[in-house]
């Protein structure tokens, strides 16, 4: 099982230069500005050790999905993958 949780990181942007040194931290997508300021919010997946390193840097870390919840999320999506196209006959 993956030990990556879905997290939100908020910190001074200057700290993000150090993210690349943190193992098992994967930023997912483009950072958002926090309420019209220069502060940035990053979406990411990270294991527990990476989360600790982020906190040690001075970042606020919020866990959105635990590793178990994230794993279950991805599993359910994969289980539903369908090769059946839409028919467009009104039954879809």
């Amino acid at each position, binding site marked *: 099982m*993956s030990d990556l949780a*879905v997290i*939100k990181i908020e910190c001074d*942007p*200057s700290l*993000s*230069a150090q993210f690349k040194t943190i193992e098992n931290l*994967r*930023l*997912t*997508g*483009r*950072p*958002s*500005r926090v309420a*019209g*300021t*220069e502060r*940035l919010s990053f*979406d990411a*997946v990270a294991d527990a050790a990476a989360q600790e390193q982020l906190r040690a840097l001075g970042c606020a870390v919020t866990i*959105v*999905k635990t590793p178990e919840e*994230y794993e279950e*999320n*991805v*599993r*359910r*999506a*994969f289980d*539903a*993958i*369908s*090769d*059946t*196209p*839409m*028919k*467009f*006959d*009104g039954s*879809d």
Partner: protein
Amino acid sequence: MAYPMTSTAIEASIGNAANAYSTLCQRVQLPFSTNSVGMPARQYSGLLITKVAANSERPGLLATAGMHAREWAQPDACLSFAGKLLHAYKHNVAFVIPAFIDSTGATFGPITVAADRVKAIIENVSFFLLPLANPDGREFSMSAKVNSRWRKTRSPSATPGIPDTIGVDPNRNFDIAWDFDVYYSAAAVADPHLAASKQPAMENYIGPTPFSEAETKNIKWILDKNKVDFFIDLHSFSLKIMYPWSIETNQSANAAKNFRNGAFDHRRDGKLGNAYQEYFPAHSLTHHKLIAEKMRDAILVATGRNYGAVGGIAKLLSTATGSSSDYAFSRQFTIAGSRQIHSFAIEFGDIDDHFQPDPVTKYPRIEREVHAALITLLEYIAIWSGAIS
């Protein structure tokens, strides 16, 4: 219908739509084949929905989804939208987004668009839908759970053997301020506020040249060959409804501050504030804001979810170059005789929905939100064209 569909099923769905509604829409095969590691070259299609004559001056909308491989929900939602719209027109019935009951038991919607307005949309707007802009990326992201976060295309790397260097971020590969080293100061290039990279292993790699990817060439081709007045690019996630510019925040006071003016090369800072802001004509900015707010309001009615962040992309997100929505908007300034394209990008869903929203508990809400945004935009275009009041 089953969500999420594979790339193959999405392509087959487009063909099924064209067959089932042959007088209302046509499958348009795009000219550039993908060039992806370990996959055969693929040609793929869009769906042109219209009863408008080819030489008509009626307005056109291009909607794209699935540009980022891992964002699974929007392509399926776009196709189910097309199905509902075509069904409503053919049977002369209303287009209905069913009521939604949220996790607290509160009910939102339904949204009903009367049959005469559906008729006005189909007969007065050319609607080009590209539901899956990055089919090989989606196929790879669905190939194994470990690949589910893949974002880029799958074009060959210049450094084979390093898997992360495969592919390009298509939404950084359009020809708008593509070479960020020219446009921004050295400090801005090094700053995390600029979300674009020349490192192939990065998720936001801009590619070796603008339009290096078949996936972006095909969107340019659609814009070149069709009358497009409105463009919308559907992404996930973060509950934001946005319009250009992505390269800088907006201002309408100084027309000289624009990406074509070399006097500002190497001077953009990519930050908030007015050290440098990109020119956006005032009347057009007002129009974009109005349309974005209409889509926000419709989504709120449909599902009760507030896409409260409405505005210029660079004000809401970090700055970025080479995006589809900036490119579509920029064409009016760079291509002689080009129409003004009203351009939008929406980030559907939130971090809890994530890139692959749960098919049972999360997807139905996002599907309704996509439908609410698209029907609102189409209805607005029909009104704007004078077809309905």
